[in-house]
């Protein structure tokens, strides 16, 4: 706990207030907070039950009772969309969390030990980059069996590469520095020292990557859901809802519009956060004077 808190304060040092004043970032943050609120308080906010079937009321268009309409099994779409918020956001947090952890570790490991280990790990990273992430995830989920956990796992197993690059790069440059020799002399476990140093100093780029990764993870997760390989019925998940609604495109346009809209809004929010972070943490360019 203390460790996470420390991480955040280091980030806060680097963020100029300017960042928070940017309109798009502020809106993005608010949306994210709103979504988090939805996710946490879903059972209290949602008007109906997300899985209860009510065939008498199926495929109803949007109305006051059902603002997003009902699906083919009579379930209220708004309710399902709200519950799906929890599914998608939690799952993507999981994906990004695991990716960051794996990536940081492998990067530091590769940079620290160098030599053959480094070459092998870099080869692995290049291989993972050689295919579009979704294809690899597809195959893994296909092998393990569909389900939201497997989907999330698959996406985290292929999403760590960019973090590894960041941490490996910094590790390599640090290895040269003399203080490592000095601390070795004093007797500290220098792997731990380096690791801690790397983590502290890569907070900025990694947080930026992570924010953007969150949006990307939701898209990938929903894509897997759309292909039937992610969350399985009756679990509400935006992509899976789009898949279920697809067949009824002609008679129930609301099934295909609202879940997708939620995905887009969520991803927009994370992207604006990530873009804002990236702009804020870039070295500020001096005002161009001589041009």
């Amino acid at each position, binding site marked *: 706990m203390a460790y996470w808190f420390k991480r955040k304060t280091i980030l806060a040092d680097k963020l100029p207030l300017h960042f928070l004043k940017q309109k798009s970032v502020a809106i993005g943050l608010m949306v994210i907070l709103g979504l988090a609120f939805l996710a946490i308080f879903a059972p209290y906010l949602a008007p109906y039950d997300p899985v209860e079937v009510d065939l008498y009321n199926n495929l109803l268009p949007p109305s006051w009772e059902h603002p997003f309409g009902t699906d083919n099994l009579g379930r209220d779409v708004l309710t399902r969309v709200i519950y799906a918020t929890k599914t998608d956001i939690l799952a993507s947090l999981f994906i990004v969390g695991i990716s960051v952890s794996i990536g940081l570790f492998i990067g530091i490991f590769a940079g620290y030990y160098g030599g053959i280990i480094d070459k092998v790990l870099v080869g692995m990273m290049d291989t993972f980059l050689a295919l579009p992430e979704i294809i690899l995830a597809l195959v893994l989920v296909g092998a393990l069996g569909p389900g939201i956990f497997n989907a999330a796992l698959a996406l985290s197993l292929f999403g760590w590469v960019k973090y590894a690059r960041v941490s490996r790069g910094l590790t390599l440059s640090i290895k040269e520095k003399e203080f490592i020799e000095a601390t070795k002399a004093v007797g500290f476990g220098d792997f731990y020292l380096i690791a801690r140093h790397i983590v502290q100093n890569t907070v900025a780029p990694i947080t930026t990557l992570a924010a953007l990764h969150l949006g990307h993870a939701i898209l990938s997760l929903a894509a897997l859901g759309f292909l039937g390989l992610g969350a399985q019925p009756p679990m509400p998940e935006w992509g899976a809802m789009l898949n279920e609604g697809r067949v009824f495109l002609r008679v129930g346009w609301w099934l295909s519009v609202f879940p997708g809209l939620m995905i887009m809004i969520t991803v927009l929010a994370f992207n604006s956060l990530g873009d804002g972070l990236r702009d804020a943490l870039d070295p500020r360019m001096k*005002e*161009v*004077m*001589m*041009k």
Partner: protein
Amino acid sequence: MTLLRIQDLKAYFSTGDGIVKAVDGVNLEIGENETLGLIGETGCGKTVLGLSILRLLSENTKVEGKILYRGEDLLKLNEEEMRKIRGKEIAMIFQNPLTSMNPVLTVGTQISEPFELHKGLKKKDAIKKVIEMLKLVRIPSPSERIKEYPHEFSGGMRQRAMIAMGLACEPSLIIADEPTKGLDVTIQAQVVELMKELTTSTKTSMLLITHDLGVAAELCDNIAVMYPGEIVEYADIKELFKNPKHPYTQGFLDSLPGRGLKPMDGMSPSLINLPEGCKFHPRCPFARERCKSMRPEMVEVGKNHFVRCFLYD
């Protein structure tokens, strides 16, 4: 006859940190067949001055005053008219030719551009002219060189190519911004000699912007010494070396290797936080009360010799 007359030129930038007064009331004149040197340290605004003549400054600059070229105020021209001046009547050569040339276009293409733009030549005919220009600036095997890219040239050759670019359309005035910066001393000497020859034979006037007095001594007829934003001394080159009047000029000369390498106290002020009164007073060994609050005007102290200092006012 006066080719270029700059009257009370001001160029201010608004930046996040404040207003930068890069050029703050400058008066200069350049005549036909004259080379004027603009001497000063880095950051004194001399490059901005050069750029402002051709109005190449970015849009967030405020430029005031008059720049009279053959009697016509350049600041009042519209973009299209200005473009007819650039490269044709007045040309500019930049420092650091590696970044000042486009890396993905051949040198030949880049030098032929002024011909295509101002003389309406087609590429084929322009290339012949380019080869002539390259011969003029003494670049060997010009017909092969035109197909090469800037990074394939050596530093000295690149600078010569820039000179060729500038002289292409036989401008009346060349503005040369630190043309020898970054070059080896021997190469520098070659470039300087070339420039001297060319300006004499083509009777082109030149505004030479530099911090290197040695180079200036070779090429210039007159010198204007610039200190953040303004001219503090103006004289004929020999007179300046013999009789520097402004304390800054004196300090500048004293800091040269040939004269004792005596460094001056303090540092040039930044263009944002300028001192009150005479800008040099914090560093001036002769500063008096008056210097701290009032800004001196330019006064004549000899034939064609002007100083901005209360010592003479």
